[in-house]
């Protein structure tokens, strides 16, 4: 029975893809919800406070409570709004954000699809998301959202140029637009592209922060200036969709950065077999998480909370034991390293938010057009020339050697 089901799934690639999509969608929604929780916690600890603590142990159920609350809120449509566009706009944003994941390889063998224009597809679809913002701000028929939408359209368009240019440098090395190939190429070259393209990496990170409307470039929704920017008039779950789209976009840009610059699912120094012991890191990570949770539990004075944390710690230890089983250890390598890198990237996003003040609109544009884009262009030219010289030098030696 089980075997026949398995065979049926294998025989229908469409069904397999559908299952993968479902898994990714479900897991990602959870991740996005808990990303908000993580942001609130990390910010809180950086700011000498505790963050959410009331809903569930250490506020762990806060995302669920927030989601429920937003679902139950009234869906208000302003009187002067363009109703159709107003209703559509958040859906466009979230659609674009989630669709991108179709082309992102989470591990060497776990992706929905590997198309040969993967990167192009990702860039194209994620830039569609801006329509959600512009249309949402426009259709609200209100001043603050309109200003917010104008700001964000200008910002996203100009930083997309810089970010896109930065990626060209990587493509010159990878010779492929397929996300899977790009990672495999990093494995065969034995180096992550961040070391070959440090300038491009920096430009991409800055552009990524700007594209996701995060501090210090969070002008479109600068609450102290434009109240809430483009989604001022939104309420209830439509607001939640925008909110989710923003955090999903954070995950998206982190995934792209990790895949292109940080070796995707590869473990550090993947081409050096001497460092093979690094493959045991997942076990240590789960044990560490278990220990941390146990420590939290022992510190707690509430009996229920203590028990919950003990169970959670036991769960982590069980996971560690499961992972220690060699086939499983091999199987989860990719997803573990990919997840860890993305998490580090997301943490940096939150860190920026706690540290920086906000740029002004014209300063943001200045940086984008006067620094980032010329720098990215220069990087492309330098890389191209360098790569050409390097390759032709090797070609020349090869020809000389053959002709001998």
């Amino acid at each position, binding site marked *: 029975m089980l075997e026949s089901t398995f065979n049926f799934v294998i025989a229908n690639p469409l069904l397999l893809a559908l299952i993968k999509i479902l898994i990714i969608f479900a897991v990602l929604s959870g991740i996005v919800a808990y990303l908000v929780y993580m942001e609130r916690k990390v*910010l809180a600890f*950086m*700011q*000498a*406070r505790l963050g959410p603590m009331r809903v569930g142990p250490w506020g762990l159920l806060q995302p669920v409570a927030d989601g429920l609350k937003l679902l139950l809120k009234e869906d208000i449509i302003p009187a002067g709004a363009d109703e159709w566009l107003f209703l559509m706009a958040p859906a466009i944003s979230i659609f674009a954000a989630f669709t991108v994941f179709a082309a992102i390889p989470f591990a060497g063998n776990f992706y929905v699809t590997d198309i040969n224009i993967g990167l192009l597809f990702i860039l194209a679809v994620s830039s569609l998301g801006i329509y959600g913002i512009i249309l949402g701000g426009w259709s609200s028929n209100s*001043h*603050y959202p309109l*200003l917010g939408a104008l*700001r964000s359209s200008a910002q996203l368009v100009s930083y997309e140029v810089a970010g896109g240019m930065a990626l060209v440098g990587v493509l010159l090395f990878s010779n492929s637009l397929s996300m899977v190939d790009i990672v495999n190429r990093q494995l065969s070259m034995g180096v992550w592209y961040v070391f070959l393209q440090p300038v491009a990496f920096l430009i991409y990170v800055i552009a990524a922060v700007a594209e996701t409307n995060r*501090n*210090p470039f*969070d*002008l479109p929704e*600068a*609450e*102290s*200036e*434009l*109240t809430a920017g483009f989604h001022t008039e939104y309420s209830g779950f439509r607001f939640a969709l925008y909110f989710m789209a923003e955090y999903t976009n954070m995950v998206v840009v982190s995934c792209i950065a990790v895949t292109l610059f940080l070796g995707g699912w590869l473990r550090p120094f993947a081409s050096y077999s001497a460092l093979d012991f690094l493959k045991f890191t997942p076990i240590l990570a789960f044990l560490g998480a278990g220990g941390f949770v146990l420590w939290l539990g022992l510190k707690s004075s509430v009996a229920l909370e203590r028990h919950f944390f003990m169970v959670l710690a036991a769960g982590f230890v069980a996971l560690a034991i499961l992972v220690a089983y060699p086939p499983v250890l091999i199987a989860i390598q990719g997803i573990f390293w990919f997840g860890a890198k993305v998490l580090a990237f997301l943490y940096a996003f939150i860190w920026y*938010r*706690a*540290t*920086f*003040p*906000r*740029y*002004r*609109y*014209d*300063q943001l544009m200045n940086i984008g057009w006067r620094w980032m884009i010329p720098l990215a262009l220069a990087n492309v030219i330098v890389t191209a020339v360098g790569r050409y010289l390097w390759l032709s030098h090797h070609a020349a030696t090869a020809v000389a050697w053959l002709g001998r």
Partner: protein
Amino acid sequence: MAEATFLDANELVINMGPQHPATHGVLRVKLKLDGERVLGTECIIGYLHRGVEKIAENRTYAQFTPYVDRMDYCAAVTNGMGYVEAVEKLLGVEIPPRAQYTRMILAELQRIASHLIWLGTHALDIGAMTPVFYTFREREEVLKIFEEYCGARLTTHAFRIGGLQYDLYDGFERDVVKFCDYFLPKIDEYEQLLTKNRIWINRTRNIGVLSGEDAIALGVTGPVLRGSGVKWDIRKAQPYEAYDKVEFDIPIGEHGDTYDRYIVRMAEMRQSVRIIRQCVERLGPGPIFGKVGKVIKPPVGEVYHSIEAPKGELGYYVVSDGTVNPYRVRVRPPSLINLQALDKMAHGHLIADIVAIIGTIDIVLGEVDR
């Protein structure tokens, strides 16, 4: 032809406030915009008007003291200090040194607390969300001292006409010195986050420039005036209490921009700590109350007395008709006068700068509207 909409006009008028996260209360600013550029501003005030000055006419002199705390609720101690001193001047009473030094300590602590609120909210408006939590953490320590002294944290009603109601609690000096030691490194911590931060400098340098002449012409006082390079501090110019007996500097700015005002206020907090330390040293034993009768009945006459509140010159004009109620009390709130400079400072800047400028003026709407 299509119907003309507001988009066809070059000027866009938007209301900032009275409910807006960055107007520090219920200030309403009508902005005339061309795109994001500000062509003009108009402040509409009065949303928090409570008629404090009129209330004074139906209260006795002593009864009115708690009301003044509710004007600048971020600096209740200095507000009360200005009023009780004005009445003391009217009565012609001297207050004993112990009471004077106590008042100075509490007033300078209040200046620190008020500047901390300013710093936190100002930084928050410009987008740096972390300093506000740090400054409120330190402010809490000040409020704990207030609470220990008089039982209240915000609207303290700390002083009485003629001196102090309570003598200092045991360990007051220790707490204050401990706070000073604790607080100075914290100022460095804030400066580490902001002073040399590229973005912070970009957002505040040459924003809301106010020349010294303009500042004087507009009647601007306090750190805003000093930021414009005018060395005017009432604590030095017309010393009250025992400010002529302590040493401190008046920090001033050069360019009169938002960054200079930021630097001035940061330096002022350090100077306040310096004043507090000197006051604690001189805080000897002695009486805490001057010669004031049970019923306060000043002779017919009028008096204007002003002090250097955290936000600028806080003046009280009190007229007595010889009864137990003041005939008229008029307050010169620094926030209201300083707010008049907004239009001059904001002209030609962008919307984002408006919030920086409102923040740098450091207004409290309770005081603007009274």
